[in-house]
């Protein structure tokens, strides 16, 4: 039974497409996080700490893009 399920999943393009869509949606969410982080810095500017947090948000977005591109190329 399990072997049959494995066979169905093997090479199934839908799973890969689903994974890419999920990756893309998460990337969009990260962009919202980055935007909100920038917006909050305008409300409260905690010196260098806010800048570091913003840099982390940007790093998150960059990593998300890299992961999405890698997924597109590899899968």
């Amino acid at each position, binding site marked *: 039974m*399990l072997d049959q399920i494995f066979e169905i999943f093997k090479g199934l393009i839908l799973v890969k497409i689903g*994974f890419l869509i*999920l990756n893309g949606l998460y990337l969009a969410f990260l962009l919202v*996080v980055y935007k909100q982080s920038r917006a909050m810095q305008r*409300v*409260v500017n905690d010196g260098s700490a806010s800048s570091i*947090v913003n840099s982390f948000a940007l790093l998150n977005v960059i990593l998300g893009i890299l992961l999405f591109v890698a997924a597109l190329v*590899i*899968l």
Partner: protein
Amino acid sequence: MPDIFVGEPEIKKESIKADKKEDKIHHRTHLFAAYCENPEAFIFADKLDDEETLLFLRKHFVTNAPWIIKSISLGIIPLILVFISSTGLVRIDFLTPNFVLMIILFYYFLIFGYIFVNYLTWFYNISIVTTQRIIDIDFSQIVFENVAATKLTQIEDVHYSQIGVIRSVFDYGDVILQTAGTLPNFDFLAVPHPERVIKVIGNLIGESENA
């Protein structure tokens, strides 16, 4: 025999150094600061020209323990799965190595995102006490943002509650500011050193009433 001339008592240098060090820590904001008196290099929107920030508060860092523990637990799960698959109980060989690698990378990236969003929520949930106002900035679930402010003259009473062993050990509690009339009360939840906070606010209320 009574002492006619008594010199000044010796104050231990170490204790002075420790006090100075503590003061320095409490004046500086950093990535994990939850309590800061007269913070340096701190700006907030709509700050008045003659307004000075006296207290800068966040929830005690210990309150982040639940999501930190969850993140660590989630981080360990793939390692357990790899161990189980190596014993042969679960098969993952129907997936190509590249796909497994991408799933693992994406999984850890999700955990990183979870950590960051939780940290950001803690980082931007701030309470500020200035020489003129009390400001409460709420930021949660990334999309919710609420900034509330009241003048010191509107504050009628201030008290705090510190219930529980963990709160006593880490010295944090809830500070409740009662405002006049039908205005909503201000709650500073789980802030460090609540007794110091009510002392500062109490002094300010007294000054504003005298003025």
